[in-house]
């Protein structure tokens, strides 16, 4: 089984978000970039398929040279090869087209992308790849088992889970649940050393239009101070929620 894990290079979850150039650009100053958490759950599941079922795992990202530390980390975790598509990831449709192009030529049985990146939250990449390549697709996937070419996936729905029977070739929009938080791996020294010798292919982007453009950003409006209610005066809290907030 040949697996492609699509990786987005995103600000660490603890990052404070600021904008620059007249609020038209995300301010990367002082921001630590990491593997998108939804992608990392997928990558870790792919490692399981590699170790237990002999799968080959490639990772791919769309981005400039500054994203290489992030994909090197994926190699240090255990991916066999990496592909960097040398282009600015302008929007979800553009990124999906680039990844689909690489995937088409790679003959992958399973493509795992995160259900969304935690920066732009587009959530369209796995669905577009699956449609462009005419592959089966399961989104918000929290469990994945594969036997031969049969796959059993569980996806999160509003208010529960749905079990889906499908088959390879398959695209997954992954998230936490594919593996547990405690299964995530921190690269060890041996992994980091080996990653330096692994192939990191840089390929040029294919021609694709951009469908959307962020023209301006804003931060949430500053909030007023919290109104504290004494623990012995819960009646006041209920009155505030009813009369002032109109929330109950």
């Amino acid at each position, binding site marked *: 089984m040949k697996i492609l894990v699509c990786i987005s290079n995103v600000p660490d979850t603890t990052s404070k978000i600021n904008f620059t150039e007249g609020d038209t650009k995300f301010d990367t100053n002082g921001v630590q970039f990491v593997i998108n958490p939804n992608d990392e759950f997928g990558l870790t599941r792919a490692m399981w398929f590699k170790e237990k079922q002999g799968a080959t795992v490639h990772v791919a990202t769309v981005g400039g040279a500054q994203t290489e530390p992030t994909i090197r980390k994926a190699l240090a975790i255990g991916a066999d090869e990496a592909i960097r598509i040398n282009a600015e990831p302008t929007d979800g449709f553009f990124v999906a087209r680039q990844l689909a192009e690489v995937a088409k030529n790679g003959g992958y049985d399973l493509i795992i992308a995160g259900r969304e990146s935690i920066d732009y939250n587009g959530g369209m990449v796995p669905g577009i790849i699956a449609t462009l390549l005419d592959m089966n697709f399961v989104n918000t996937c929290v469990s994945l088992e594969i036997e031969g070419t049969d796959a059993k996936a569980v996806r999160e729905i509003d208010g529960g889970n749905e079990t889906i029977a499908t*088959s390879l070739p398959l695209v997954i929009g992954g998230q936490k649940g594919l593996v547990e938080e405690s299964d995530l791996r921190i690269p060890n020294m041996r992994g980091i050393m080996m990653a330096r010798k692994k192939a990191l292919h840089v390929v040029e982007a294919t021609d694709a239009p951009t469908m959307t453009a962020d023209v301006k950003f804003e931060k949430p409006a500053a909030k007023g101070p919290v109104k504290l209610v004494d623990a012995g005066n819960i009646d006041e809290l209920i009155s505030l929620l009813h009369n002032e907030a109109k929330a109950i």
Partner: protein
Amino acid sequence: MSVLVYTESDKGNFKKNAFEAVSYAYEVAQQLGDTVTALAINASDCSVLGQYGANKVKHVSNEQLTNFNAKAYANAIAEAAISENAKTIIISSSADSKFLSGILAAKLNAGYVPNVVAAPVSTSPLVVKRTAFSNKGFAHTEITSETRIIGVSNNSFGVVEHGVQVDVEDFAVQVNDKDFGAKSVEVDKVVGKATIADADVVVSAGRGLKGPENWGMIEELADVLGAATACSKPVSDLGWRPHGEHVGQTGKPVASNLYIAIGISGAIQHLAGVSASKTKVVINTDPEAPFFKAADYGVVGDAFEVVPQLIEKLKEFKAQNA
């Protein structure tokens, strides 16, 4: 021309997000000078959509579409868009709509913007305001493609009544066997209880509860309020509560009217996921907990003392206001 809106239903009944999506479609159509056409699949009373501004409902009645199937449903929406020559398509932000969004965008070669929270900023060019950076910011996003798909965030634009004369027509769609390459075999869903996605009130608890055995009072409080229950990331990582309850940056987003956080300190990732809620209440023993800076109302106190009191007082309040 018309604005096409996909209206979700469950066992024939429209979901609340369907009414919000139609309300939004009406606003967009007003701005563009278009009419609103809704697409409904196996719904029982389509005329109700007129209340929220639909001029026409295309109703698909098809046994093969009894269960949600992302490819087949995306195909139905695409066919409806083509038959109506609709260049603007509105969907919700439910798990199902997000599942089909990428498929639909690829089929129609359309620009798609999810998590939209307000009426368009402008229509020429079409610019919409959406959340970005997992609710840590907003983006004004221009959709430059000819066909555009807007995903409306739950509980953001709101449900608005208009009372429009509505025509309902049957619409037959092509269903391809290939679309069922991923097939639903079992749905395990909480019934008769609010879900985090569409609840007006969400009651959420964290490590301050000390152990899974103490969740009885959280469930009771949720019962009294008709609320969904949720939890912080550490609680789901510890296995105290199911993953489906984890709210925050890598869990589910919350956009309820009221969010009550009990024993949750308020890490930046948690606050990002819940910040879209309109009114936030925090109950925590530590007055320095970061959640107090993000909340509207706060109680500094022990959950084991405050929550039972809150349950009693709310029961009294509900009895008086019933």
